[in-house]
């Protein structure tokens, strides 16, 4: 007998390109960034990319634009701008 089972497999963008949900987007001012990675640790969406030198960037494809990173940045190196 043919036996079929449904499986949900891990995939990025499981609900689609969540960057499209955004109304404003975080912009990192690298000149101000102190590489504390607080923004990365608190990002709810795993869309702050942390590099080996602790500099950061944003994965705009999936960033929902919540603004937690900008709010938590101790030196205001992340700015939310209209998207």
């Amino acid at each position, binding site marked *: 007998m043919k036996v079929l089972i449904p499986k949900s497999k891990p995939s*990025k963008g*499981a609900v689609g390109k969540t960057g499209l949900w955004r109304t404003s987007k975080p912009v990192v001012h690298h000149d101000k960034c102190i590489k504390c990675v607080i923004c990365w640790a608190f*990002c709810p969406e795993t*869309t702050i990319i942390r590099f080996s030198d602790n500099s950061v960037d944003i994965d705009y494809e*999936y960033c929902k634009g919540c603004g*937690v990173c900008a709010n*938590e940045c101790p030196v205001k190196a992340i700015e939310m701008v209209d998207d």
Partner: protein
Amino acid sequence: MTSIKQLPYEEYFLAGNGSCPGCGLTIGLRNVLKALGKEVYMVVPASCSSVVQSPFPNSSAMVPLLNTPFAAAAAAASGMVRALRLKGKDSVVMVWAGDGGTFDIGFATLSGAAERNEDILYICYDNEAYMNTGGHRSGATPFGTYTGTTPTGKKENKKNVPFIMAAHGIQYVATASIAFITDLYDKILKAKDMKGFRYIQIFSPCTPGWLLPTEKSVESAKLAVQTGIYPLFEIENGVFKISPPSKPYLKKEKRKSLTDYFKIQGRFKNLKEEDIRLIEKWVDEISEEYSSMDGKKVI
């Protein structure tokens, strides 16, 4: 103590998931999974996490995950961990449940698993209401809170589940917060290596449910600790220990104003002056009680 920079790069929960912008639980979950690594089985009852993990045929979880009905998580995890141990597998079995699934409907199941001292790491991410249904009061909802079923404010206090769990005689109980991520991380690391039932309750703001601006989730969680309304502590083998992030705020003069905490959240819009005074009195009492208990065997 781990520093933020020491948190591992590895991620086990993927971007592009079903969480709301600013979601507190995903901040917690990401970092919990960082502490646990990939040898973990997740058991998730009905909750926001049912949605956050994303729908079939995809999943945002990079670890095996079993979804269960609302009241079943701790029992399903019991069956799972017994089966894994029979096979000689030592992986962590973690329940990841909301406060409704923990304080209310799942409570008998939770209590049963704790009484049996099953080898489970039970984590309750506490967003203080049934948020997946659109915001409805639970046993975790604090006094005075607006929800869909308490439109003029909840009349009762939050249930003290961490102490109830400690009274089960389990070896480890802790409260943690998504705003104190390294404290949370270290508590998970500590609990990871223990055997038997462990209970950790993580304060996790819900931006839509709390009528909270999306960028304020971490800020509000930080204030909950700094105002003393959500103290972080551990009860290890019955010994109570206030956690470093909460320690300064046991002193009344150090505590931030509750009004600052309440005013950024729409869910507290019904609070009157006398309500706030009542809550302040309660925070004072609890802080004093916890100060006197610090370092002592309490259960």
